[in-house]
């Protein structure tokens, strides 16, 4: 009996999961990059700067949460940037007072703010619904579908704004959520929302049957189906949630700028993709974590911010991002291969 007990204990030998290992590896990279930047750039290590590094990219992080889950199923969502633009423009258009000006761009529907936000979020869900229909029901590759809806969402936003922006005749309440800060600090409400969403996502990822099945779908979709998982239903839920997250981001950004801009959030889908990959999420699916994605976001933030501090021209931003991404992902592959022997 004693030996039995012993065998069980050895079977339980707790080994860190590969996800935690990669996240820790990226934390190491973050510390290294941050230390180097602190040596090179004056005042880089100050608490206020650290806070900025963590909070400045809240919108990319919120997008990254949904994109992480979607990539864990082995799929993509390139429509999030367009969805942000669409939701922001819709929220503005629905909130603008009606019949107040000769200028068509100054007239909206005059709906109450709450109703306008709800309807705008429905617009975001519509984009998610189209994604889900084509990907989950018709089995079209997600990269194709979401590239299509990316242009569709932005296209509709452009029509509503006539290719420009809407920023007049807005009620005062429109700007509140985007500009409210925690009293006595510079922390925006949006950042609090980001932190709350990260916490929820981390909990869901680690504790729920839902997330477990998301991993199973990514690890082997056919085995998942034969294990009784309704793959289509899970993909549908994920694309709807992801669209909703993009929609919330769109509302917050529109409120912060008090404008609905059709070119808003251009390229955010790629930024979200970059931080997700930096965070160690596998493009093949079945592997990755929300916490890793968050670390990836901070690394990207440190690198771009340090480059600006070193007076590197902003023209170098893209090149820099690509170099960081390449090095980080090669590093991860190396570390994982080494670990698995």
């Amino acid at each position, binding site marked *: 009996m004693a030996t039995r007990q012993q065998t*069980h204990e*050895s*079977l*339980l*030998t*707790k*080994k860190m*999961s590969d996800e935690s290992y990669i996240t820790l590896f990226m934390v190491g990279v973050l510390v290294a990059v941050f230390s180097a930047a602190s040596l090179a750039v004056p005042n880089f290590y100050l608490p206020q700067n650290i806070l900025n590094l963590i909070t400045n990219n809240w919108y990319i992080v919120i997008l990254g949460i949904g994109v992480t889950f979607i990539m864990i199923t082995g799929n993509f969502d390139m429509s999030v940037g367009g969805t942000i633009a669409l939701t922001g423009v819709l929220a503005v258009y629905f909130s603008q007072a009606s019949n107040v000006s000769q200028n068509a761009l100054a007239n909206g529907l005059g709906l109450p703010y709450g109703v306008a936000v709800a309807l705008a979020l429905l617009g975001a869900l519509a984009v998610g619904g189209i994604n889900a229909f084509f990907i989950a029901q018709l089995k079209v590759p997600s990269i194709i579908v979401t590239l299509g809806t990316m242009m569709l969402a932005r296209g509709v936003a452009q029509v509503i704004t006539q290719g420009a922006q809407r920023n007049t005749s807005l009620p005062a309440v429109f700007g509140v959520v985007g500009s409210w800060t925690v009293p006595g600090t510079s922390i925006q409400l949006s950042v609090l929302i980001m932190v709350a969403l990260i916490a929820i996502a981390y909990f869901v990822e680690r*504790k*729920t*049957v*839902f997330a*477990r*099945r998301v*991993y*199973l779908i990514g*690890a*082997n979709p*056919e*085995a*998942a*189906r*034969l*294990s*009784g*998982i*309704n793959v289509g239903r899970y993909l549908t839920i994920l694309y709807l949630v992801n669209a909703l997250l993009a929609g919330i981001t769109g509302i917050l950004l529109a409120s912060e700028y008090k404008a609905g801009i059709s070119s808003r959030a251009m390229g955010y889908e790629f930024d979200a993709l970059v931080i997700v990959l930096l965070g160690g999420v596998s493009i093949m699916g*079945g*592997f990755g974590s929300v916490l890793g994605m968050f670390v990836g976001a901070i690394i990207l933030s440190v690198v771009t911010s340090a480059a600006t501090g070193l007076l590197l021209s902003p023209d170098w931003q893209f090149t820099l991002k690509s170099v960081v991404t390449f090095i980080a992902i090669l590093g991860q592959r190396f570390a994982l291969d080494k670990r*698995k022997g």
Partner: protein
Amino acid sequence: METQDNVLEIKNLLKVFPGVRAVDDVSFDIKRNTVHCLVGENGAGKSTLIKILTGVYQQTGGHVLLNGHEYNPQNPRDAKQQGISTLFQELNVVDQLTVEENLTLGMEDTWLGFLRRTDKINKMVDVMKSIEPSINPRQQVSSLSVAQKQIVEIAKAVAAETDIIIMDEPTAAISESEIERLFTIIRNLREKDVTVIYISHRLDEIFELGDYVTVLRDGCHITTSPVAQIEDRSELIRMMIGKTVFDEYTPPEDPCQDAVLQVRHLSNHRLTDISFDVKQSEIAGFYGLVGAGKTELARAIFGADYYEGEITFKGQTLQPGPEKAIAAGITLVPEERRTQGLFTILTIRGNIPVMNMGKISHNGFINAAQERSATIDYVDRLNISTNSIEKETAKLSGGNQQKVVLSKCLFADADLLMLDEPTRGIDVGAKSEIYSIIRELSREGKTIMIFSSELPEIMNVCDTIYLMYDGVLKDVLKNNCDIDSENILHIVTGGN
């Protein structure tokens, strides 16, 4: 002079996989310009032998002489260059190109990367015309039938002056009239100085086509003789199965009479009008050769594939769909464990509970302690050898992987367990462990359906044996001591 008559000489060939001698000291010669048939049951070592000849595997020991010279191909391309081409069941033609483009594929004459029409194309086309005049060289390959595509591949091999063409079940997917045409072509190949190694489960074809036949059994060479010297198919079957003794089977003590599963008029693209009943705690075996429709039947019952007809389980009509089947109490151990059964990048703990997450969770939240203890429970019960439940399943041996898949299905608490090729590619020890698990489950009152192309497996464990051929249920037998394995092989190879 002797060596000139033999195009291929196989001497003491040995191939060892962990736990199994797949090809065990095999020696025989193949005479030049003949059709040499290779027969044996699944697992007899045919495919391993072929894979050595085509350079997919390297032998563990022994020699192969091609035209009297040492032959030791490093890869399939190397084998082809040295003179052995293969016609696989999965054809190697490019549908989007024309026939003549396919003929010269990989050896085109080019100028700055552009295709040049040279004599080479004309030569190839001439060879093909001499084999089969009815194919237009400008035709798109996608518009050809399977048999015509095979002919294109044969022509390509002949034009490349190959010595030997290996044909692996070439008639499995083509129609009767096309088979006749293919046979005529194969017979004519000897005039083009080509030897054919022909593999087929349809024994009649061997008598119709073959000059020589080699029988393999359990990795060993049984005989090589001219087909003319073999009396009839029963003699061939006797050599294929040998004196296999099926003494392990003991009939259940109190056979239960309630039909738990009723299948009525089940048909789909591979199945024709299948009806049968399975009784509670019965072990039903479905035996047939590769392509007989066993996997398709299992997948249809499980709801993984489309079907017409009606399935009743425990008195209720079964709705199609794996999630519905699992909810009703049916699980499937699929044919391909790595691609259909296992989540190879996940751990043992990540695999075992997936079919019944409700048992380890409350309101959608996983109880980690329950998950671990349930996993350990199954690692114990099925004797899965591992040092940790956190081990990635990709790193387990085939037998242990299969036990994980089996645990996954058992964890779902199903009343009917379907197993498709449950012991394929796993060693003897793990096999017998799996058989005893199956018997024990049946004693516990579970109903088992085994779909297998290994007759000893079916005879060892099954109470009832269903014979399938070409999507049709041909016969049902009760397993007992005087069951006639020759007759069984007769039926599943297309006899009446």
